[in-house]
């Protein structure tokens, strides 16, 4: 391999400066410094219909977590199998922009992002009336612009907003909420530092993360993932707190969608 003299090559093995940062201390008393209570969700800003070519789109900001989602379809499927004859197919693609986290990610989809896409698909699928779109495919593309914690939960809310904005028929909206269990106390809608904090090193009892996707009007859970090491009763309490967290998001969701519908067209004459 001819040696490339022009480019100045850095040291073979370089370490990112982040390692030498002192790990941000998770507030030991695990109560947030008065900014918001443990059970409060970060303030959410949401806007629909901002990508013109997409059928439906939505942008959501929760604290510093910024997510944009676009919906295309229903489109024709090339490779069909028998199940596509009766119901439509939902295809989800979850991407983290390379600049979204502290450490620069890669453009190609890593296995972790593929896992998040699968979790997003499983959370959205129960909410969409796929039987109304036989032989066709609805594509949902989520892009995380800035990752400040609980990206899957907010991605679920953003994606279902984009679907509703795209005029895709749905049984119910899908709202997502995440929670970080730290010993006996739990932090709803954790930020990035709270989410992984010193949990990796922590050997205490009851450490973990829970993400939940909820259909609020039908009171059905459409997605649930939990990691870490928790007692079963702590887990059930965490799921209940997550459900309350989701219900808190419903007004914002409703207001954003109604604003978009009003902006799109005046009410039809009687």
């Amino acid at each position, binding site marked *: 391999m001819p040696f490339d003299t022009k480019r100045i090559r850095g040291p073979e093995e370089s*370490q990112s400066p982040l*390692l030498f940062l002192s790990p941000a201390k998770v507030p030991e008393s695990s109560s947030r410094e008065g900014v918001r209570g443990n059970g409060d969700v970060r303030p959410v800003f949401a806007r629909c219909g901002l990508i013109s070519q997409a059928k439906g789109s939505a942008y959501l900001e929760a604290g510093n977590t910024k997510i944009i989602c676009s919906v295309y379809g229903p489109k024709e499927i090339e490779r069909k199998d028998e199940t596509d004859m009766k119901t439509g197919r939902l295809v989800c693609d979850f991407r983290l922009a390379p600049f979204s986290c502290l450490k620069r990610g890669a453009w190609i989809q890593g*296995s*972790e992002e*593929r*896992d998040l896409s*699968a979790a997003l698909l*499983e959370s959205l*699928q*129960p*909410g969409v009336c796929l039987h109304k779109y036989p032989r066709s495919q609805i594509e949902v593309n989520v892009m995380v612009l800035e990752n400040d914690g609980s990206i899957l939960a907010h991605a679920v809310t953003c994606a279902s907003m984009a679907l509703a904005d795209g005029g895709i028929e749905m049984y119910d909206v899908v709202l997502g909420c995440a929670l970080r269990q730290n010993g006996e106390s739990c932090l709803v809608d954790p930020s990035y530092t709270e989410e992984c904090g010193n949990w*990796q*090193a*922590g*050997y205490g*009892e009851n*450490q*973990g993360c*829970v993400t939940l996707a909820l*259909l609020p009007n*039908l*009171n*059905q*859970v*459409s*997605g*649930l*993932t*939990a*990691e*870490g*090491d*928790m*007692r*079963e009763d702590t*887990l*059930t309490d965490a*799921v*209940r707190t997550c*459900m309350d967290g989701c219900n808190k998001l419903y007004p914002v969701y409703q207001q954003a969608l109604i604003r978009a519908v009003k902006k799109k067209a005046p009410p039809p004459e009687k």
Partner: protein
Amino acid sequence: MAAVHLSEAEKVYIIHGVRDDLRLDGRGCEDYRHMEIETDVVSNTDGSAKISLGHTDVLVGIKAEIGKPKPLVPNEGYLEFFVDCSANATPEFEGRGGEDLGVELSNTLYKVFNNRLSVDLRSLCISPGEHCWVLYVDVLLLQCDGNLFDAMSIAIKAALFNTRISKVQLSENEEGGKEIELSDDPYDCMRLDVENVPCIVTLCKIGHRHVVDATLQEKACSVASVLISVTHRGTVTCVRKMGKGSLDPESIFEMTEAGKRVGKSLHAPLMRLLQEEESLGQKRQKVGFLG
């Protein structure tokens, strides 16, 4: 999983059967199929185990290699998972067919073992920041008849129990670099404490009840299933709702409670079986695939 087609009538028959607590093969809702487990099946691995749960056959091989610890946790070794859905199980897994299922399975395994208590990672460290043991856990799926997660987790626990990592001494060589020598006595090796390793229980929601150890046919009639991994103390290390449908919160709580109960009761017979097999030592007549 491999695609199984069922007619509407067969699905209705299965759903009503589950309602009467009598499944196709006569089992109750929380019974496992006939299970056979054997360790040390493949000789050039550090630990191996084979399980056949009904017609689901899984073979797990563990190889320990020396690697660099992760920068964030310099004083610990780590586990790497790889699931190989071989074409042996079904022709659909030929070529790249089995890859996305394999990635999904290994991602879930990372989640299940991604906590501090299951395997004592600090015992895997040789010299902090420089050398540590990396356990490559390779799961080979040979025959697939549903309930892969449970079979895999039990086989992994048995394989970890069977793993022997040879002891290592650290010595300074001339230029001050660290020199690693393996002890030459093959029997002087380190065993892993698998007491806290969790087992996965998959509960499929069929009709209004949930079922444990579902076959491919039963899985085809289930809308959603909950995967829960439980340690012998009853703590939950991973929960995942899977499948196209949604579940109401009550049934989720019911399923996690049942999952904990069933999961907790898996560990005792498994450890007894492993101890019994260990005690047989050389007299044990190796069966493997020749049985």
